[in-house]
């Protein structure tokens, strides 16, 4: 019996992109549904009644919510091209850093484009500090997963399409501060699962400009 896989998502969401990249890595066919977040579909509200947020993966009628939970689920159900290392200690490190990205990066990145002055400077510093820690963790490996994309790569790389927004609004260069991260992004973009999924950073920037006007952030 063929699997029915649906992904409820929003095109620039770094959280949704995690699911899209994982599914692509595993070669899973799925139906992509883009949500209008100002007018959420009944399916989204029914599938994620607690948070009412994307992404939601619906596999044979069962909903899985929260991007890290979704990526782990995808990895456990479709066992080809495992995203997690074999060794338990390395797995723990991968989980730790994925959790770190989840806790820190979105929050300070968002504060970069939503704030000005001192608050923005503080957000930029925090953001760079996070990326520097992540550079340290990458070391000399081509990917966090080693020779291929792994859990941390999938969790982190979606933010790359937001870098242009952060840099332009924050007036700084991520490449100057964290060249290894940019080099790693370029390697990730050589993978089809990433290059086909990530939206054009300029389109993300346009959307943020629109959102800022809508919410009166200048």
């Amino acid at each position, binding site marked *: 019996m063929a699997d029915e896989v649906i992904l409820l998502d929003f095109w620039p969401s770094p959280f949704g992109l995690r699911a899209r990249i994982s599914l692509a890595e595993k070669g899973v066919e799925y139906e992509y549904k883009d949500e209008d977040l100002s007018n959420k579909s009944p399916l989204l509200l029914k599938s994620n009644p*607690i948070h009412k947020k994307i992404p939601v993966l619906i*596999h044979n009628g*069962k909903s*899985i*919510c*929260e991007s*890290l*939970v*979704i990526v*782990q*689920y995808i990895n*456990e*159900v479709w066992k080809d091209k495992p995203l997690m290392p074999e060794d*338990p*200690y390395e*797995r*723990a490190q991968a*989980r*730790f850093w994925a*959790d*770190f990205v989840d806790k820190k990066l979105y929050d300070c990145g968002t504060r970069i484009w939503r704030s000005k002055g001192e608050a923005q400077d503080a957000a930029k510093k925090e953001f760079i500090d996070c990326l520097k*820690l992540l550079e340290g963790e990458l070391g000399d490996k081509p990917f966090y997963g080693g020779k291929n994309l792994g859990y941390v790569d999938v969790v982190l790389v979606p933010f790359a399409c937001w870098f242009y927004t952060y840099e332009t609004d924050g007036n700084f260069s991520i490449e100057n501060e964290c060249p290894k991260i940019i080099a790693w992004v370029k390697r990730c973009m050589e993978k089809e699962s990433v290059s086909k999924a990530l939206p054009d950073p300029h389109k993300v920037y346009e959307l943020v400009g629109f959102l800022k006007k809508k919410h009166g952030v200048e």
Partner: protein
Amino acid sequence: MAMGGVVKLLGTWTSPYAMRPSIALNLKSVQYEFLQDPYGSNRSLLHEYNPVYKKIPVLIHNQRPICESMVIIQYIEDVWPTGPSLFPIDPYDRAIARFWTAYIDDKLFPSLTGVGRGEPGAIEQAVTVFRHLEENFEKCSKGKSFFNGDTIGLLDIALGCFLPWTRATESILGMKLFDPAKMPHLEGWAERFCADDAVKKVMPSTEKMVEYGKMLHAKYNPAPN
């Protein structure tokens, strides 16, 4: 061989997060040394082993640190797969357990802190968390004793570690966050959870938590002269 070796856990007896790996290690019958005073005499150890957050708990296995309570629990399951499984077998059931665990971490800790500080809406938020778990108990447990089934697992541990703090708060404030009359499933589950040997060894009594809570309150709210 992954399972052998020296196991140490850096934590405090009051921390719900430190209780989590303690319970998991006890369930797996793994011997470990509990290192206390992470912000005092063991401060340099804490900074060395958790430079990113400088927080407990930290599991130290063969001198290698693992940080973040839920990462530690998953590590414990990976290294000591014998004994009761801390995770459901089915990937969907595992996803549900992980979802609710993330929800508890996101909502329950800040709401209990908020209740302690008298923040508006904190009580309602804490009650909402318990209510959602009450409503989902049957679906997760499939009629068995714990969220994880026959034996304690990830979600039981994630929620259960907050029982001492919840009960102490209820005692100090003279109210119920988790009313047995309205939440019979959670009430039954809590009794069974607290009665388990793996939990009894490390769960502080409500009385001790009340004393601790009063001490903290006095420390941060000194009486005016």
